[in-house]
C-alpha cells in the first residue's frame, strides 16, 4: 500500500495540464523589478543605488539578520530606481528596478552545463555558500535555507526528507525539474546530507508522477543512502508535518519544528538551487514557473529570471484568455489571486494559474449545518468550524487553546465545506491575532 498521512486530507481534481511541457527559457524582460523582501524574515538591505551598473548574479541587497538572505540581480543593466512597487499582495513594497542591457554574467558563476559531482566543502562552508547565494525554500514558504540547515544546539537531524510531492493541483514545475534535472537534484541532496551530517535521505513523490518516480528510483539505486518513496495522491501530502508522518511515521509536536523529531524537509527545487549555489556558484536568480489553466492557449513551464513581470509569462503562452476570472499566484488551494499583472516573479513563485470566470467566484456564505466535514478533512485534527466561530466572537484565549496555531493553512476545510463558509479566512485572522497576543505576553 502507498504511504500517506493518516488524518484528513482531500483529493481535488489534479488538472496537471502542463505536465508534458518541457522547461522553456523565457526571454529576458526589459525591466526587472526585484523586491527586497522575497523570503520569510527580515527584508534585505539594498546595496546598490540609482544609476549603478549591475551584472547578473551581483548582490543587490544584503541579508539583515539570521532569518534573512541575500538578493542578487537576475539581469545585467542599470539600476533605474529603488522604489515602491506593487507586489503579489497588492501592497506597494520596496524593490530594486533594473533596466536590462545585454546579459552579462558575473565572472565567478560557472555557466557550463556539465554535471559537477565532486564537492569538498565542509558542512558549515556549505551553509555559508547557501546564504551567500540567497537560496530559500522553493516550495512556496520561502524560508531561508541556511536557517533550516543550521540545526539548533542540542538537536540532531538523522534524516533528510526531499519533497517532490507537488500536491497542489495544476502546478508542475517541480515535476519538470525532477525529470530534467534529476542528476543535479541528487548531487544537491548529497550536499544537503553533508551539511546536515545525515546518512539517509528519503525522496517522497506522489504516485501521479510515475515517470519521476522511475527516474529517481534508478538514480537512488546508484547512490547509497538515498531512497525513493511513492506516495498516495492526497492533499496536503506536501505539508512538512504530513510528509514526515507519511515517510517516517514520526509526529512533529504541536508548536514544534520538524527538527524536533530529527527530520529536515527540503523541496526538490531547493536541492537544485543548492547544487547550483555550491557547485556552480550560481545565486538564486531564476526559477521554473508553471503557467497553466484550463483556457490557457499554451500551458507551459518556463525558466524565468526573478523580477520578470507575470504579464510576460502570460504573453508567452498566448495572452490572457477571454474568460479569465482570476490570475492566481501559486496553486488553487494555497495560492493568492493577483490584482495586477505587473507583479514580478519572485523566489517563491511556483506557478501562475489562470482560472476561468465560471470557476473563479466564491459562492455565497451560508450557515454552518454541523456536518463536521471540515473536522474530518483537517490534516492537523483541528475543528475549523469552531475556530472560525471563536474568531468571529473574538474569544482569543479559546482560539489559542483550540490550537489555531497548528493550522497549516492548507485550505482543505474551506474547500470541503458544503455551506461555503470562509473557514480559513477566519482561522488565519485567529492565528495572527493569537500570535500577536503571545508575543505581547512574552514581553
Amino acid at each position: 500500500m502507498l504511504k500517506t498521512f493518516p488524518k484528513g486530507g482531500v483529493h481535488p481534481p489534479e488538472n496537471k495540464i502542463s505536465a508534458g511541457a518541457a522547461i522553456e527559457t523565457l526571454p529576458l524582460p526589459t525591466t526587472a523589478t526585484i523586491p527586497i523582501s522575497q523570503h520569510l524574515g527580515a527584508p534585505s538591505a539594498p546595496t546598490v543605488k540609482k544609476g549603478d551598473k549591475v551584472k547578473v548574479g551581483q548582490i543587490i541587497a544584503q541579508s539583515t539578520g539570521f532569518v534573512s538572505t541575500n538578493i542578487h540581480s537576475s539581469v545585467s543593466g542599470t539600476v533605474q530606481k529603488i522604489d515602491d512597487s506593487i507586489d503579489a499582495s497588492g501592497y506597494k513594497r520596496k524593490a530594486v528596478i533594473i533596466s536590462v542591457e545585454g546579459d552579462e554574467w558575473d565572472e565567478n558563476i560557472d555557466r557550463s552545463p556539465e554535471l559537477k559531482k565532486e564537492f569538498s566543502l565542509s558542512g558549515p562552508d556549505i551553509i555559508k555558500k547557501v546564504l551567500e547565494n540567497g537560496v530559500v525554500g522553493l516550495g512556496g514558504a520561502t524560508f531561508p535555507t541556511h536557517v533550516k540547515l543550521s540545526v539548533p544546539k542540542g538537536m540532531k537531524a538523522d534524516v533528510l526528507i526531499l519533497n517532490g510531492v507537488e500536491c497542489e493541483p495544476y502546478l508542475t514545475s517541480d515535476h519538470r525539474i525532477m525529470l530534467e534535472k534529476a542528476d543535479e537534484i541528487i548531487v544537491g541532496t548529497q550536499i544537503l546530507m553533508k551539511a546536515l551530517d545525515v546518512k539517509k535521505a528519503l525522496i517522497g513523490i506522489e504516485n501521479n508522477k510515475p515517470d519521476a518516480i522511475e527516474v529517481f528510483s534508478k538514480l537512488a539505486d546508484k547512490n547509497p543512502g538515498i531512497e525513493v518513496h511513492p506516495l498516495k495522491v492526497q492533499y496536503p501530502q506536501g505539508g512538512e508535518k504530513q510528509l514526515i508522518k507519511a515517510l517516517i511515521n514520526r509526529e512533529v509536536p504541536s508548536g514544534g519544528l520538524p527538527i524536533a523529531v530529527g527530520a529536515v524537509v527540503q523541496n526538490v527545487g531547493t536541492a537544485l538551487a543548492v547544487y547550483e549555489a555550491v557547485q556552480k556558484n550560481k545565486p538564486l536568480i531564476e526559477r521554473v514557473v508553471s503557467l497553466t489553466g484550463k483556457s490557457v492557449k499554451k500551458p507551459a513551464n518556463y525558466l524565468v529570471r526573478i523580477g520578470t513581470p507575470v504579464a510576460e509569462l502570460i504573453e508567452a503562452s498566448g495572452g490572457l484568455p477571454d474568460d479569465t476570472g482570476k490570475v492566481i499566484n501559486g496553486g488553487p488551494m494555497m495560492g493568492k489571486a493577483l490584482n495586477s499583472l505587473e507583479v514580478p516573479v519572485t523566489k517563491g513563485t511556483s506557478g501562475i494559474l489562470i482560472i476561468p470566470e465560471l470557476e473563479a467566484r466564491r459562492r455565497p456564505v451560508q450557515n454552518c449545518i454541523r456536518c463536521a466535514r471540515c473536522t474530518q478533512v483537517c490534516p492537523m485534527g483541528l475543528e475549523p468550524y469552531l475556530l472560525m466561530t471563536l474568531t468571529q466572537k473574538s474569544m482569543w484565549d479559546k482560539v489559542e487553546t483550540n490550537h489555531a496555531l497548528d493550522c497549516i493553512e492548507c485550505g482543505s476545510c474551506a474547500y470541503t465545506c458544503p455551506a461555503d463558509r470562509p473557514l480559513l479566512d477566519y482561522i488565519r485572522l485567529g492565528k495572527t491575532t493569537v500570535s500577536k497576543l503571545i508575543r505581547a505576553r512574552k514581553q
Partner: protein
Amino acid sequence: MSATVIFTIVSLSAIGVIAATILYFVAQKFKVFEDPRIDQVDEVLPGANCGGCGYPGCRGFAEACVKANELDALFCPVGGNDCMADVAKVLGKEAVAKDPEIAVLRCAGTHSLRPNVNQYDGAANCTISSNLYGGETGCTFGCLGLGECVDVCNFDALVMDPETGLPVVDADKCTGCNACVEQCPRDLFELRPKGKKDRRIYVACRNMEKGAAKKIGCEVACIGCNRCVKECAFDAIVVENFNAYIDPIKCKLCRKCVMVCPTGAIHELNFPPRKVKVEVEGEAEKPKAVKAKPEPVVEVAASKAEAQPERVVEKASPEALSNKENENTSDQSIKLGE
C-alpha cells in the same frame, strides 16, 4: 391539620433558622470590604459598558475612580463632562472638564471617486481583507467598506452608506468611545474635538504614497502638495509621508486651507455656505460672515466635493473617470477587475 404537616413545617423552619444563623456568622467572618462609594459612582455612570474609558466596563471604571487620587486621567466619553462632574461630586474630588470628542472618517474615496479595479469575495471582514491584499480599489490605504467599524459601534453611531461604500458617523449618537478607532485595520478613524458649534476641519485621507501614485487610485486623495501648510496662518498643518494632518488644537477653523486644496481632500463640517466672492475681499471678513449666519446645523459640506460642485464635475464625471482608468491601468487588470 395532621401531625405530619405540623412536624414538617416546624422542622423546615428550624433548619432555616439554623442555616441563616450559620450563614450570618460566616458572612461576618469572611466579609470582603467593598468601598460603598464604588456602588454610588456606578450609579451615576451611563452603564453602557463599552470600554471607552479603558476599563473593563462601568464598574471597573467606578473602582478606578474611587482608587485614584485625582480624576485628571479618567474620563467617561459616553457620559461626558456632566457625568464626570457627578462622579466628582460623589467622591468629593475635582473633575477636569474635557472637550468632547467625536469620530471622523479620514477617507472620502466613494465608489465613484475611487473605482474598484478588482473584486473581493472573501470573508466580509475588513481585517481579513486588509491582511490578505491591498483591496478592491487602486488605493491601499482607504476604506475597505466591509463595515467592521459599524459592527463594533455600541451606540449605533455608524451606518454604512451603500451609495458611497463608506461608513457615516452620526454626530448626535457618537460618544467618542474609541472602539472604531481601535478596530479599523486601516486606522481611518480619528477622535477630534467636537469643535465650536460642532465645526470641524480635517484631512479625509490617509494615503502615504507619493502624490502622483495615489492620484491614480483616488480623485480626492491628499497629494501632499503642501499648499495648505503654506496657507495656514496658525502652523496647524504638517505634511508627513505625503499626507497632511491638521492639529485640531492649533486649528482656528478659518477654512482657508479648504479653499487651496487642489483635490478637495480637506473636509469642513457644519460651516455655513461660503459667500460666493469672499476670496477676493480679504480673508479677515470671513469669520464675521460666519457669525452672521449662525443657524445651519445640517452637515452642510460633508465633503469638498459636494461643497463645490463645479470642481466635481470637472473631476468625477463618469467618462472622465473611465478614461483615466484606461490610461493608468493595463487592459489586463481591468479585465481582472470586472
